[in-house]
């Protein structure tokens, strides 16, 4: 469903409307294997209309997942600022990720710092984390990894 989307186009708004029609804003994803990833997608799609609270406390990804997820969130933060601010759930992800001891891999640190820099309105146009052609919010890969996990889990709304 989600592919590479130009945030300036009306396509994303269309997807948001369809999503909101099918999935209630207060949907509960507790117990799902991919709880954090689903919540991230959910927050991206409904977060503009409501404040969402979900815990990162038990988020213990593999290094590969962590690197990918942090980069995706940096891109979402870059394109998806709300009222000039990065969504708070993304900043909570940053705190959780950066609080690991030993610290996370360098690409995760770079993405986390980029997210903070975006929120503080630093110029990150040349940040490698966002890619030189980081024009779009790329949720496709995230969605693919989700759907693999979702089939093993049970949805509870």
């Amino acid at each position, binding site marked *: 469903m989600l592919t590479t989307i130009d945030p300036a186009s009306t396509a994303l708004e269309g997807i948001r409307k369809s999503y909101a029609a099918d999935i209630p804003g207060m949907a509960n994803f507790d117990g799902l294997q991919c709880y954090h990833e689903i919540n991230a997608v959910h927050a991206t799609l409904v977060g503009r209309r409501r404040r969402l609270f979900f815990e990162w*406390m038990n988020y213990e990804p593999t290094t590969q997942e962590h690197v990918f997820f942090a980069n995706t969130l940096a891109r979402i933060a870059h394109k998806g600022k709300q009222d000039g601010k*990065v969504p*708070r759930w993304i*900043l*909570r992800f*940053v*705190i*959780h990720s*950066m*609080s690991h*001891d030993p*610290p996370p891999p360098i690409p995760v*640190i*770079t993405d*986390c*710092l*980029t*997210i*903070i*820099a975006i*929120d*503080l*309105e*630093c*110029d*990150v146009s040349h*940040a490698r*984390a966002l890619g030189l052609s980081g024009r779009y919010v790329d949720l496709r890969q995230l969605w693919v990894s989700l759907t693999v996990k979702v089939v093993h889990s049970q949805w509870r709304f």
Partner: protein
Amino acid sequence: MVSEKLSKKLKTLVEATDLGQIRSEYKAITALFPYAVWQERDGKHEMLNAFLYVVGASKWFGFMWNHIGPLFPKLLDEESHISLKRASVLVSPHLRWWSLPTSKHLIQPLATAASAIPYTNEVGMSVVDTLLQIASDHSLRQYIPLDMWSWLNTHPPLPPVCRGRYLAGLSNTLQIVQALGDIEILKSFLLLVWSEWNGLYFEGLKETYSSIWDDLSEIEMWHHREDLLKHLDHVLGQLDLGLEHLRQRDPDINEDGIQQRKDQYRTLQKVLLEVDMEATEMLIGEPLRLAIHFCPLTSIDRHKVPLNVYVCSSPPVSIVACLGYSLPLP
């Protein structure tokens, strides 16, 4: 590169002296803290310094976002690197102790960590500020280890905007300090709380009056009374320098606040002098009372007392009273 931009941004925020903007960014700035402490562990101090600089400049109580809470047990762990302990002690006054879910579990480790790092004014300031904040909270004060109170005796120079000192002047923290039964700690507490930067309010003021009578009225307390009177002289002197002078360090201070503090500290001065007078009377009886009325007595220097001569020293006036009978010197 992003890291450099961030530390530069923090400095810019402070230099712009836009407190509103700094405060509105508290969540993003808090998110930088874990990175700052790992950098600190690697011997790179720039980010932690920039972080502390901006947090201090915010002049805002409880600057740090509560989501940082889970990091602290790791930093305060006995096995953790000394630089991590130091970083957590330095930022401890900026935590929201009153609403942090794990507050009570952090107090003992914080005290232990503080004792394990080399003392500096910044460390003393942070521990004392945090201690006073915790002590003002009814649900947390029971978790303060007894030896943590001795940090008050380090007399660190607290900053103009200090949540711990403010709360200590507002709440019944003095009762807790009194209950410790340690006069040095009690005096240190009063020396820290009586400040040109804040007044005493409600319970704090009422309790201070009774504490002066209850704890400082014995004759052997004379040197404590003298220290407190000297301190009040200093505080009143600072307040006399006026609004413009004080605003250089605390832009929120106003004329009414200054006047109120002057009134309070003058009253405290008067109460201390009354207590001093009464203690002296008890010791020497009636003959000297009339003489004392003519000088601003603040203390009695017992080291200079021969058996039948009592020397009362109170700069700039000194009087010698020949009493004609032996005094019951301790």
